[in-house]
Every structure is written in structure tokens, then in C-alpha cells.
């Protein structure tokens, strides 16, 4: 009965909150609120909750939404035609065929996984460093975060994304309408091509300002697609969106569609000179719209924007491969980056305060040489940095140690704030000793050595790096669009030159006899054992303490390296 009463009162409170009670019931509930503390608290909390809900910030406006919907509506008939291109009786066969292709691609990726893991284990990219230094524990992060525009162009032309610039390892994607897709890791010589830059492209095709804005938007969106297409977690497990195998062609097609006929010829020459594996043939070249065609830009961007966000990934783990559905919020990941970056300057300020305080604490009669505090700016290979030497007595060293503890507390606060977003900190033990903190960009390292030496390393350039904002660029592009959007009659045919031998090899294994399958399974088992052995070995490294050879030979000094 009490339960029913409680529900009834909650209902009355809810109605009262919305002004839906008649006078008599309103007076009753008001009296109850006045007399009963529990009911009063419930009412107040309901009101507070309503305010919280009402204060939700709306999403950023999507200026292209109406355009995309109208384009989809216009293309509806065409889509429906395509949907029934395969006779219904062949649908089960087609589905089976697609499934086989998917498995083939997955197995191909599996066979390549050792190279991927080797890359992740051995190379020193920023992401890898961040994972190793624990700050991103428990999170899934993009492997190709913030691909620059030149890299996007290179990706569009050759289908490769750089993994390790030193040994030329690239992630290569390829797609053919007839034989599915493939994603591979390679440093084959034919893939090591000279880098192509946007400026070279612009020099060749001489785009107008409107075309440049279109390209800006294309590259911006491509950067986002690439970012969300290859993911890695802190256990070095990789998730690849198979659809990445299409994006490079979409980018290239987008560029080509924006060009007028003269530019198109130059663009083809540009591709041919660089020996790209793709070329295109316009079936309606005599009807190519001019650069003043008002509908052209929006058609291109509408086509490009219809690329869906990835959902199905191929997930490569240490001991398995699977097709998995990942529902990732890339915006949350970007917000996370933003938070990390925004908090880093606080440490810089704090550290500077400490240094300044000790500068002020110098007694007037301090010996002239060597100075107690020396600040030496340096421009190293990793960016701008400062090195500060502080020479002090035992008392000050103890005080400084207290200050450092305060810094460490701030570090701990930062880590808690980071973990709030995903609430995963409990899953991973904190490193014990030495305390070792780093941002994902470069590093902030605080190291307390056993002999009371203190060292802080901060890369200032990386801290000050601004996060990426896209709205302005989108807005800029929108301004260049015209209100009327006639349908485009551009069609491109892709002629793929690269042979598909490797995929065929896997395919033949799949289609082969049981003996081949057994052979394949044996190979997989052997590879799995090798990986596990490698992993066990990697997890037990012996790390001796490493003294800083550059430290000045001072007695009982505390050294800050900033």
C-alpha cells in the first residue's frame, strides 16, 4: 500500500510540476509538500532535474542537412533501381558471396596482423607513446589522428596511409567492385612513393577560390573519415573499418568532379606523372559543367557526405579476429583530446610559478657564479623547450620536494578528470614508481629519482597545440553554395591497374579442398603461438634506472629540466 501511495504521490507531484492539477488537488499536494519533508525534497529534486534537462545545450547546427536530404530524395528512384539490380532469386547467393569475401578480407588482415602489431610495438608514434605512458589507458583512440591534408591527398592517389616514415611502412587499402576489398600493411618498394603535396596539385590545376573551398571541405571530411576508420586500444588491438577501402576513390572523385574540362585534363596528367594506380574516364566529357555551374559544388559535397560513419569493423586482437559492431562517439574522443590539451597549460603555469618563486628566494648576497637559477631556452628537434637549473641548499631542497608533491597531486587530479569521461580508471592499476605522466601529444614527465633528484620535462609546443575546429570551415563552405542544385550528370569509371594477386591467393585457399583448409588452420595456429610468445616476452622487460648524462655535476642540487 505504501508503494502505491508513493507512486500516487509521485504522479501528483509530476502533474503539479506541470500545472495539470485542479484547484482542490493542487491545494492538497501543496499542503503535503509543506508538511512532509520527504515529499518536499522529492518535489525540489524533480524541479531541479527538470531544470537540468531544460538546460541541455542543443547540438551544433548542421548546415548541410537539408542539402543532403534533398539530394537523397532526388536520388531515391536511382537508389531503388540499384537495390533491385540483382534479381531477388539471386539474393541468397549474393549474400553468401559477400560473406565469403568478407571472410577473405578478414583472413587477409589476420595474416597481416603480425606486421601491424610489430609496428604498434616498435614504432614511436605519438599515439603509441601515449598508450605506453598510460595516460590513455582503457580508451579506444584513432590510429590516424589528424592526418594532414598532404597525407589525405596521398591517400586519395595511392590508397596508402603512412605508419612508419622511417622504414616506409604503410597501411594500404584497395577496393574493387568485383572482388571485395582488402586492407594490408606493407613496405613493398612499389608503395614507397614520393610525397605529393596539395600545393603541387594546386599549382597544376590552378583552382578558383570556390574550388579551393570545396577541396577544403573534402579534405576536412576525409580527415574525419580516416580518423574514425582505424582505431587502436591500449592493448594494441586494432579495429579497421572495411569501408576505408572506398574513401580514397571518393576523395579523388570529389576533386575530379569539381574541375572544369581543362583542369580535368591537367589533373589526369598530374595523376599520370605520379604513376597513380587509378585513373578515370568521364563518359560525358563533352558535357562537363563549367566551374560557374552553380549546382556542381553542392553535388560533390552531397555525394561525399553520404559516406556513412563506420559501424562494422574488423577487429584484430592478439588471439582472435572478428567482425564487430562498434558504436563510437568520435565527438567524445575529440572532447577528451580537448580536455587533455586544456589541462596541460595548468602544469606549465604551476611549474613556472615554482621556478619563479625560487628565483625570488635568492638571497641578495648570492654568489655571482654559478647563479642559483639559470634558464636556458632551447630549440630541439621535438620543439621549443626550456632547461632550468636550480642549485639550492638542503632546506630549500626539502621545500622543493613539498612543492613537487603538490605538482604530483595536480597530476593525480588531472588523471581523475580524464577518467571521468569514460569511468574506466579502476580497470587499470596506476603505475607505482616512478610516477610517470604524459599527454598524448608529446609529454609531460615527472620523475622522482631515488636520490632526491627531480626532473620535469615539458614540451611546450605540443601543449600549446590547438584542437581542431571544423564549424567555421563548414560555414565558409556553405556560404559558397548556391540555393539551386540541379542534378549532376557526371559519371566516372574507375580503371584499376594494380593486380589483385594476394587476395586471389587467399580466396583460392578458402575455395580449396579440406587439405588446404587444414594447412591454413595450422599456419594460423603457429602464428598465434608466436604472437603469444612475443607478447609474453614484451610484457616482462627489464628496465634499469637511467641517469641523465646531461645533468650538471652539482652536489646536492635539484635539477629541473623544463
Amino acid at each position: 500500500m505504501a508503494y502505491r501511495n508513493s507512486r500516487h504521490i509521485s504522479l501528483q507531484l509530476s502533474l503539479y510540476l506541470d500545472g495539470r492539477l485542479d484547484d482542490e488537488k493542487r491545494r492538497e499536494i501543496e499542503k503535503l509538500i509543506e508538511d512532509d519533508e520527504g515529499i518536499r525534497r522529492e518535489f525540489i529534486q524533480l524541479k531541479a532535474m527538470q531544470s537540468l534537462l531544460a538546460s541541455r545545450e542543443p547540438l551544433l547546427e548542421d548546415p548541410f542537412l537539408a542539402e543532403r536530404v534533398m539530394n537523397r530524395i532526388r536520388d531515391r528512384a536511382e537508389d531503388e533501381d540499384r537495390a533491385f539490380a540483382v534479381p531477388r532469386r539471386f539474393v541468397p547467393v549474393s549474400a553468401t558471396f559477400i560473406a565469403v569475401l568478407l571472410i577473405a578480407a578478414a583472413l587477409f588482415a589476420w595474416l597481416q596482423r603480425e606486421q601491424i602489431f610489430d609496428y604498434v610495438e616498435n614504432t614511436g608514434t605519438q599515439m603509441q607513446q601515449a598508450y605506453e605512458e598510460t595516460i590513455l589507458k582503457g580508451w579506444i583512440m584513432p590510429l590516424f589522428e589528424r592526418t594532414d591534408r598532404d597525407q589525405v591527398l596521398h591517400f586519395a592517389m595511392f590508397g596508402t596511409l603512412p605508419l612508419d616514415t622511417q622504414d616506409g611502412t604503410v597501411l594500404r587499402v584497395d577496393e574493387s567492385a568485383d572482388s571485395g576489398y582488402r586492407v594490408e600493411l606493407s613496405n613493398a618498394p612499389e608503395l614507397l612513393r614520393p610525397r605529393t603535396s596539395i600545393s603541387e596539385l594546386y599549382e597544376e590545376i590552378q583552382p578558383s577560390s570556390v574550388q579551393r573551398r570545396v577541396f577544403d571541405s573534402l579534405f576536412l571530411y576525409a580527415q574525419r573519415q580516416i580518423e574514425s576508420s582505424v582505431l587502436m586500444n591500449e592493448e594494441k588491438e586494432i579495429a579497421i573499418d572495411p569501408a576505408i577501402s572506398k574513401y580514397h576513390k571518393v576523395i579523388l572523385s570529389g576533386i575530379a568532379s569539381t574541375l572544369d574540362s581543362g583542369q580535368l585534363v591537367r589533373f589526369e596528367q598530374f595523376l599520370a606523372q605520379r604513376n597513380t594506380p587509378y585513373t578515370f574516364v568521364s563518359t560525358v566529357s563533352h558535357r562537363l559543367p563549367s566551374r560557374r555551374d552553380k549546382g556542381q559544388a553542392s553535388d560533390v559535397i552531397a555525394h561525399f557526405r553520404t559516406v556513412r560513419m563506420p559501424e562494422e569493423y574488423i577487429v584484430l586482437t592478439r588471439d582472435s579476429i572478428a567482425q564487430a559492431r562498434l558504436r563510437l562517439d568520435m565527438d567524445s574522443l575529440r572532447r577528451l583530446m580537448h580536455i587533455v590539451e586544456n589541462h596541460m597549460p595548468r602544469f606549465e603555469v604551476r611549474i613556472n610559478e615554482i621556478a619563479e618563486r625560487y628565483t625570488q628566494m635568492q638571497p641578495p648576497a648570492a654568489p655571482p657564479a654559478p647563479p642559483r637559477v639559470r634558464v636556458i631556452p632551447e630549440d630541439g628537434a621535438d620543439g621549443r623547450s626550456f632547461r632550468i637549473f636550480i642549485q639550492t641548499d638542503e632546506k630549500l631542497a626539502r621545500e622543493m620536494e613539498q612543492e613537487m608533491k603538490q605538482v604530483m597531486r595536480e597530476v593525480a587530479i588531472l588523471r581523475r578528470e580524464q577518467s571521468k569521461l569514460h569511468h574506466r580508471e579502476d580497470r587499470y592499476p596506476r603505475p607505482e614508481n616512478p610516477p610517470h605522466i604524459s599527454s598524448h601529444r608529446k609529454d609531460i614527465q615527472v620523475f622522482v629519482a631515488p636520490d632526491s633528484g627531480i626532473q620535469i620535462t615539458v614540451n611546450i609546443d605540443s601543449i600549446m597545440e590547438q584542437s581542431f575546429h571544423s564549424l567555421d570551415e563548414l560555414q565558409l563552405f556553405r556560404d559558397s553554395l548556391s540555393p539551386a542544385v540541379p542534378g549532376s550528370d557526371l559519371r566516372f569509371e574507375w580503371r584499376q591497374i594494380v593486380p589483385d594477386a594476394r587476395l586471389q591467393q587467399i580466396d583460392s585457399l578458402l575455395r580449396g579442398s579440406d587439405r588446404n583448409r587444414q594447412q591454413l588452420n595450422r599456419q594460423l595456429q603457429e602464428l598465434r603461438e608466436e604472437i603469444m610468445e612475443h607478447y609474453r616476452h614484451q610484457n616482462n622487460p627489464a628496465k634499469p634506472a637511467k641517469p641523465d648524462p646531461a645533468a650538471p655535476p652539482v652536489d646536492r642540487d635539484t635539477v629541473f629540466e623544463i
Partner: protein
Amino acid sequence: MTPEAMADHVEEQTATHPAIDPGDDLLITRFQAGDEDAFRRLLERYAERIRNLVFGIFHDTDLIDDITQDVFIKAYRALPGFRFDASFYTWLYRITINHCRDIMRRQKRRNMLSLQTLLENRDPEVTAKTAVQPQDGDTQEWVQRGLQKLPEKYRIPVILKDLEGCSYEEMADIMQCELGTVKSRLSRGRSMLRSWLAPILEGY
């Protein structure tokens, strides 16, 4: 008045008073008379509201775009048969809610497997340690998570009322149920959400 005559009338009015923004009904009439641009104006008018409604229901930025597009395409197909029994936005909300319900049902049936789920399943000790408390600054995130915790039949009335500001009658129309059902579900949803937000609301 035939749709064509109505459209002519609207055209005259708009030409005479260009500053007047035609209402939904006039735009629908224009559209039914064959003016595609009228639909575009309706779309521009309501796109952001629908996006925010979808975001409230799913809290998934990857889904918003597709769902919003699907909703408007459904509306485009159904609009020729619109009979002006309800306001356009109520009708559009109903399409949105029904579409979101379909998606939620499909998601339930589908075996959702994420990388994180795989990882968590591999480490059974993790499950016991995942209880979390809200921290300063992430109240909105916590509220959104609370909304996602609500069963669909309670989540939708809370969103319609407290996020979208619909009246009880509009909610009954959108949810296609009785007024009494709206009241009880809204109250139940609020109570459940209040329980979830207890750590945040304790200070009140």
C-alpha cells in the same frame, strides 16, 4: 478549394507580403500541389529540432544524421497524404518517434558486440569495479546517461516533455496513446531518472 487553387492563393499572398513566412499548412498545401521547394522550407524549419530529438533519444552522434535523413524522407513520402488532422510538427514528431522505436527494437534483436565489451568480458574482475560516481563538470553527461538508462516507454515521454516542451495532449498524439498513459509514464520516467541522478540531486 483545390490544392492547386490553394497554392495559387498562397503564391499571391507571398508575393504581396514577401515578409510573411508561410505557415506549415500553407507550405504543405504548396507541396501537395507539386512545389518541391515548399518541402525544403519545411525541412529547414524542423531539421534541427528533429536532430536534437533524435540525439535526446539515442545520445549517439553517429546515428543522428542517418536517422534524421530517414525521418524526412519518410515525411516526404507520406506528406502527399497529410490530412491536416494534426499539426505538422506533431505529425513529424510521431514519425520520428516511431522510426526511433523501430531502430531500438532492431538494436535489441541485434547482437551488439563492441571491442570494449570483448575486453570487459575477458576480465571478470572489471565488472565489479565499474561502479562510478558523477564528478563536477559532467552533470549533463550524467543526465544523458540517465536518459539512456530509461526504458523506451519512459524515456520518450520525459524527452518530449522536459526536453522538447510538448504539452500532454501533443505527447498523447505523438505517442499514440491515452492521456492517462502519458501522465503515468512521464511520472514513472521522472522517478526513475531522479533515482539515477540521486548523487547529483542530493544537494537540493
